[in-house]
């Protein structure tokens, strides 16, 4: 027998409590907005009062106008949207390939001693390589086309994904792994049905870190014969001390990264709620 429970009228205390709760929920967003506003105000004062030369820190207003200019007329032969398109394509191709390679590599490292023996030295060797130093080798082997650019970005993303995947796989509890094996899971099934799901939150964290790394590498990658792209745009502007374009470009990168970060967090909350509920 299920007894239905009608909602009793709320007491004053209960209403107060609900109010506090609503407040508490809104607080982070408010604080965030407050800080952002404060930073912009400080920036405005700094750049207009002459603390910092406007050549190096143009006031927020001129960033806005640079932004509009970029949008309508563009810079270095392309509009802002074209630059964004080129860079997005590169970063997400790179993400695609680094997930494609990094997740299996991480799984292998975490599960197979031989896999670890073979892959670990390779990964650990590649990980600290400075893109600025190996660009000539990349060009020799992969030319000056998109391949090289995507490769450079992917190389900067893969380690975070590999390491996070491996760490995530190891986070599956011993008894969960034992359970699966006792129910006759083949190594492959163990991987797909237990280790991989257990690693998903960690892989998502890895992707978040990797995307950050990818954006920072974009500029280095676009040193390679790019004719378009946010990194290329920023690079060119920086050389000519067109600081408003530099800052506008940086802000665009941040905004895009922000949007994808939000998306990833949404995915995390929506699809791996268990990672927060254990």
């Amino acid at each position, binding site marked *: 027998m299920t007894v239905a429970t009608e909602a009793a009228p709320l007491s004053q205390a209960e209403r107060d409590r609900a109010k506090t709760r609503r407040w508490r929920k809104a607080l982070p967003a408010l604080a965030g907005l407050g800080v952002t506003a404060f930073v912009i105000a400080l920036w405005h004062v700094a750049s207009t009062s002459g603390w910092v030369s406007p050549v190096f820190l143009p006031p927020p207003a001129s960033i806005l106008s640079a932004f509009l200019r970029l949008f309508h007329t563009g810079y270095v032969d392309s509009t802002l949207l074209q630059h964004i398109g080129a860079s997005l394509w590169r970063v997400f191709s790179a993400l695609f390939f680094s997930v494609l390679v990094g997740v299996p590599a991480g799984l292998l490292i975490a599960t197979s001693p031989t896999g670890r023996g073979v892959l670990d030295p390779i990964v650990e060797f590649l990980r600290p390589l400075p893109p600025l130093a190996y*660009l000539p080798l990349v*060009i020799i082997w992969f030319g*000056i086309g998109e391949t090289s650019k995507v490769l450079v970005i992917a190389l900067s993303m893969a380690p975070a994904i590999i390491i996070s995947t491996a760490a995530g796989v190891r986070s599956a509890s011993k008894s969960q792994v034992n359970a699966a094996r006792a129910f006759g899971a083949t190594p492959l099934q163990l991987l797909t049905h237990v280790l991989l799901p257990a690693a998903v939150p960690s892989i998502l964290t890895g992707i978040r870190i990797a995307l950050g790394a990818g954006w920072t590498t974009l500029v280095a990658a676009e040193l390679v014969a790019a004719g378009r792209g946010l990194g*290329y745009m920023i690079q060119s502007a920086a*050389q*000519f001390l067109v600081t408003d374009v530099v800052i506008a470009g940086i802000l665009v990168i941040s905004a895009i990264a922000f949007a994808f970060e939000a998306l990833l967090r949404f995915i995390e909350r929506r699809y791996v709620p268990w990672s927060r509920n254990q």
Partner: protein
Amino acid sequence: VDLRIGWQPIVEPSRVPQADGTYEQATGATVTWNRFEGGADVVAAIASGSIDIGYVGSSPLTVAVSQQLPIETIFVVGNIAEAEALAVKGVTTPEELAGKKIATPFVSTAHYSLLTALKHWGVDAGSVEILNLRPPEIAAAWERGDIDGAYVWDPVLTQIKSTGGTVLADSADVAEWGGPTFDAWIVRKEYAEANPDVVEAFVKVTGDAYAAYLADPEAWNAESAEAGKIAELSGANAADVPLLLKGYVFPSLEQQASADFLGGGTTEAIAATAAFLVEQGRISAALPDYSGAVTTKFVEAAIGQ
């Protein structure tokens, strides 16, 4: 006093007094040497007050002045001659450049020279595929056959020439066509006003080094002590140093003061570069007058010593 110098690893005579510590002795200042890989960073460092004297090419110099940074040119290192050139493969006349891939480090003096040369030849810059690559990457792309040519400097230029590249034009030619490029030493105005004697001593030592080289260029051969010092500081091969030194036309102190250089030519060259950069859409506006960014004061004082 302190003297903070921003230098670039370019093969030129002042590396020798730099290695010998002559600047310290002559200026009486505590000298700090900061190495930069490109003019843009030198400009940023000067603007932030991190360095007092810096080495820049004519493009970054023009950009800095156009942005009204308080700097002035105190010494012209020299006009770039054979040191930078357009080397190509499978192209014999400028017209054939259309549709070809030519690489150059953007914003550099080479980039400026390339665009000036194309304009001189009447080749539409839009019809040539100009790629932005740094010198080492240019070498790699050339090796692979990804590019048909490059406007670049040594040692990559030599590397290209030794693997089938022919020179279509060098910066000496471009200078004749009205687009001289040069490297120069610049100083923060504020520093120059406060320490005129230090700046003067700096110019004197640099001038002396140039004089020593110009007196007998052949003496600075691969085995010489000078070449050794230059190689050690810059990272170049000692064997390549004599050739690299020939890439510039180094003016003596007297020539510096003349109308060809600080006495007038330099200002014109900066103005021309600025006009060109505006045309290319890289900077928004040129100044009406660039003479404030050039001074003969220090070379004249050095000559007088």
